[in-house]
């Protein structure tokens, strides 16, 4: 089967939690005839929405992992990538964004642009994803799509224009006025499948004219033909579509659709919008890095005949073994092809090739450029690039934030302990923001991630999917240490008691550095330290950075320079210079006035105005700095920076002090210096812990 690439769309659905994204995905599947009955997210009928294919997601009513599903709309092929809404899983969102060509930004007609919509929109901007907006839940009390449109402009700075007007709102929503065709569209029948086109109701004619004029006027910015025709009143539908498409692809225009997924209103028109205005894979410029040419940028061509370049963006461990979701950027993937994993430097053969329709799958023989397919049984990690034809490319590396929170876990019994290793192995492969290691001192397994909820979900998944019960410790913030001024050292390591001796002298200085975590500078002149031992010094410093003297956390932002030293013809060795560097570092570290750094989060709290005082109070109690507060009618949004260590249990406290009406989102902002009083406590705790261990 050959697919016309210009009729293919890879889209994602991005939204604030609870704006009805999963329901919308479900309806898209329904109208595209992939599923036969409509299910609700929470699974009233026990089946549940198809996209949320993990049990846990079903239980919590949220979507955690993105699944890609292919559907047919008219003669178009659409791959829908369901993206998670919760901010703690942003790596999942960002990874999906990498493979999307366009997105539907879903907004609630009542809530409008909420804190997470802002985060999600920022991510879309970062990856240059063109988008259309869909204002959902127009059946809810208080629905006001025109207000949401204004928020899109004011809060997100998008050049948003209504493509439709609602006919009736709240429980009276019947259909929409299409401002391009200037017809009313009604969605009738049990599931809204029967579309009836009629004249615009008389009371909406004036508004429709006004908004159409606004729309066409804005669209004509992107097409001279349309601008001319518009002046003469001779614009055609095709001209309008073409101009809007051009503006949307350039990320300078956002067409706004509206409806209600739950009430089956407006979905079909939005799908037309997807096929009309969002790009096909050939219209998106994708760049890979050539690993053979020092990561030089290469533009990929969406051509079947070129050598294959594909990205494995998601792994899933199903009943049948490991499944890897792959986006093909260039060339094709055929059954039996040999591909090269450029990260692992391994060749592998493509065995079974499938296309995923959410929980069901379909065997195929070939994947074309631009398509999203799944491979079976490939040993790889997510984010790996697969190449054919002797290429050695990597898709540009995705921005991966460092984990900011640690949690110790201990298996409850022997069986769990075997399973735990398996589970952790898979999670770390799937999610680059999830790390784990065994702490050599306490011998405990530590998992690290982006937030409390992020780690909680993995603990839950261990229990459910691996039958592995663990006890968790108290979440621990990932502190860092850093020096604040330059300090010199001059250290001699000497050991000459029995056997072969050790001798090395290292002199130089350490100083704070921005941007990078560590740099080693060799400023030795005249060979006072023999060349062969220079890397030993580097090694010694690196070793020292692993554990700071204040509270035992890694040291960052430090440059170590060596400028003098001495050696002994017999007793100098690799280990002697390593130890000399460690000694020198120890000598200088406290003189360099080290400080403790902690992760500071950008927190955005949103709620009804009456709770504003409480929100301010909560932030102030948490050593937070209020950056700004925006008020509008009855809603208020407070943006603040709060240390992560103070954010534990915030959701519970926020809920209880605002009657559950406020919500928040948070993301890592930067590392900041811990105030002295807190630093003193941390240092005392660390010393007490060390003393206890020594006993």
């Amino acid at each position: 089967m050959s697919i016309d690439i210009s009729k293919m769309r890879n889209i994602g659905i991005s939204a604030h939690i609870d704006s009805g994204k999963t329901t919308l995905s479900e309806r898209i599947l329904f109208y595209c005839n992939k599923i036969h009955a409509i299910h609700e997210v929470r699974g009233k009928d026990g089946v549940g929405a198809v996209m949320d294919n993990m049990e846990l997601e079903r239980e919590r009513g949220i979507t955690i992992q993105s699944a890609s599903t292919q559907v047919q709309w008219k003669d178009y092929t659409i791959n829908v990538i369901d993206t998670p809404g919760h901010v703690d899983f942003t790596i999942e969102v960002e990874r999906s964004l990498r493979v999307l060509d366009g997105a539907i930004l879903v907004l609630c007609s009542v809530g409008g642009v909420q804190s997470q919509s802002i985060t999600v929109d920022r991510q879309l901007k970062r990856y240059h994803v063109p988008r259309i907006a869909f204002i959902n839940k127009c059946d809810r009390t208080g629905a006001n799509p025109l207000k949401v449109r204004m928020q899109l402009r004011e809060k997100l700075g998008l050049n948003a224009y209504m493509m439709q007007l609602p006919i009736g709102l709240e429980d009276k929503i019947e259909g929409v006025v299409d401002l391009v065709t200037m017809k009313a569209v009604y969605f009738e029948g049990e599931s809204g499948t029967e579309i009836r086109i009629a004249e615009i109701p008389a009371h909406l004619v004036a508004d429709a004219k006004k908004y159409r004029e606004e729309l066409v006027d804005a669209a004509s910015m992107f097409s001279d033909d349309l601008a001319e025709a518009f002046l003469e009143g001779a614009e055609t539908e095709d001209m309008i579509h073409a101009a809007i498409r051009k503006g949307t692809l350039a990320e300078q225009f956002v067409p706004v659709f509206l409806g209600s997924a739950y009430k089956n209103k407006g979905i079909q028109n939005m799908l037309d919008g997807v096929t009309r205005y969002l790009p096909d894979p050939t219209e998106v410029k994708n760049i890979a890095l050539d690993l053979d040419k020092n990561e030089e940028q290469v533009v990929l061509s969406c051509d079947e005949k070129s050598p294959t370049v594909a990205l494995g963006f998601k792994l899933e461990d199903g009943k049948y073994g490991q499944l890897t979701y792959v986006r093909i950027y260039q060339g094709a993937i055929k059954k039996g092809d040999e591909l090269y994993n450029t990260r692992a430097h391994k060749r592998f053969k493509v065995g079974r090739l499938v296309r995923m329709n959410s929980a069901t799958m379909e065997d195929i023989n070939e994947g074309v450029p631009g398509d999203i397919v799944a491979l079976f049984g490939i040993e790889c990690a997510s984010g790996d690039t697969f190449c054919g034809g002797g290429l050695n490319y990597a898709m540009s590396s995705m921005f991966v934030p460092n984990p900011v929170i640690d949690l110790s876990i201990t298996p409850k019994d022997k069986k769990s302990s075997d399973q735990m290793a398996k589970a952790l192995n898979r999670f770390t492969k799937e999610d680059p923001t999830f790390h784990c290691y065994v702490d050599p001192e306490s011998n405990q397994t530590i998992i690290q991630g982006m937030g409390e909820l992020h780690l909680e979900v993995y603990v839950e998944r261990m229990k459910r999917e691996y039958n592995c019960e663990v006890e968790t410790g108290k979440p621990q913030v990932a502190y860092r240490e850093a020096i604040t001024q330059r300090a010199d050292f001059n250290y001699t390591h000497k050991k000459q008691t029995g056997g072969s001796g050790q001798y090395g002298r290292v002199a130089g200085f350490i100083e704070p550095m921005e941007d990078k975590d560590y740099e080693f500078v060799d400023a030795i002149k005249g060979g006072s330290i023999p060349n062969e031992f220079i890397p030993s010094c580097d090694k010694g410093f690196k070793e020292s950075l692993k554990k700071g003297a204040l509270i035992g956390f890694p040291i960052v932002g430090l440059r170590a320079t060596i400028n003098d030293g001495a050696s002994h013809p017999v007793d100098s060795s690799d280990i002697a210079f390593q130890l000399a560097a460690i000694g020198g570092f120890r000598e200088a570290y406290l003189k360099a006035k080290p400080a403790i750094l902690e992760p500071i989060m950008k927190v955005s709290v949103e709620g009804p105005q009456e709770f504003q005082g409480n929100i301010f109070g909560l932030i102030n109690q948490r050593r937070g700095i209020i950056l700004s507060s925006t008020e509008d009618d009855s809603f208020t949004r407070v943006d603040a920076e709060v240390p992560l260590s103070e954010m534990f249990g915030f959701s519970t406290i926020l809920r209880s002090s605002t009657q559950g009406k406020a919500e928040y989102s948070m993301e890592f902002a930067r590392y900041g210096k811990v105030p002295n009083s807190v630093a003193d406590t941390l240092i005392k705790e660390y010393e007490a812990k060390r003393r206890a261990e020594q006993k």
Partner: protein
Amino acid sequence: MVKQDLIERSPVRNFEKSLGGGVKAGEIGVIVSKKGLGKTSILVQLGIDKLLQGSSVVHVSFNQQADHVMTWYEDIFNELAKKKNLDKAAEVKAELVSKRIVLNFNQDSVKTVQVIKTIKALAEGGSKPEAVIIDGFDFSKANPESMDQMKTFAKDMKINIWYSANVEVADKGLPVALKPFEKDLDVVLYLEPKTDCIQIKALKEHNKGDYMTDLKLDVKTLLIADK
């Protein structure tokens, strides 16, 4: 230059001297002019001056998003730091940011009472400001009672308040739009465009009125010029 010098040699010192001490605690000042002459710039310079001295500042904006306001501070601070070659600029900046709170309101739906309530809530939460800056307030939509409330609030809380207003100015005396508020306003300044600079005229200064000051804005940077 260190921070202390920056405060002492700031053109704001001269600004205050020329205006009978400027706007003191419990007082209200207004800067009026046409668009684009530097109202926001002066407000931000006054804000930064307060912040440098370690005071907390609340910047209320009716017409700009919080992000834009922050960019204003960032740009003006960078300009000042560069011009005066400030030591440890990044550190000083971080300190300023931690003492500044930006509030963003929509004047159509948020009344003065609400603004006062919000600032009080902040004060109760532990971030009491010493200066409040209100940019983009439309006096033609406000009523005189709201200014009375603001004045009482300023006196009770011992804070100084600077407004900006985009209004037409008559040849002499206060602009018509400000007349109803006259008794609550302690200082009213007008930015008068000249060929090579923008000169500050005092339309009202405590008990004095209508005189040209020697204060100027640099047309390029919109910073208050050094003497």
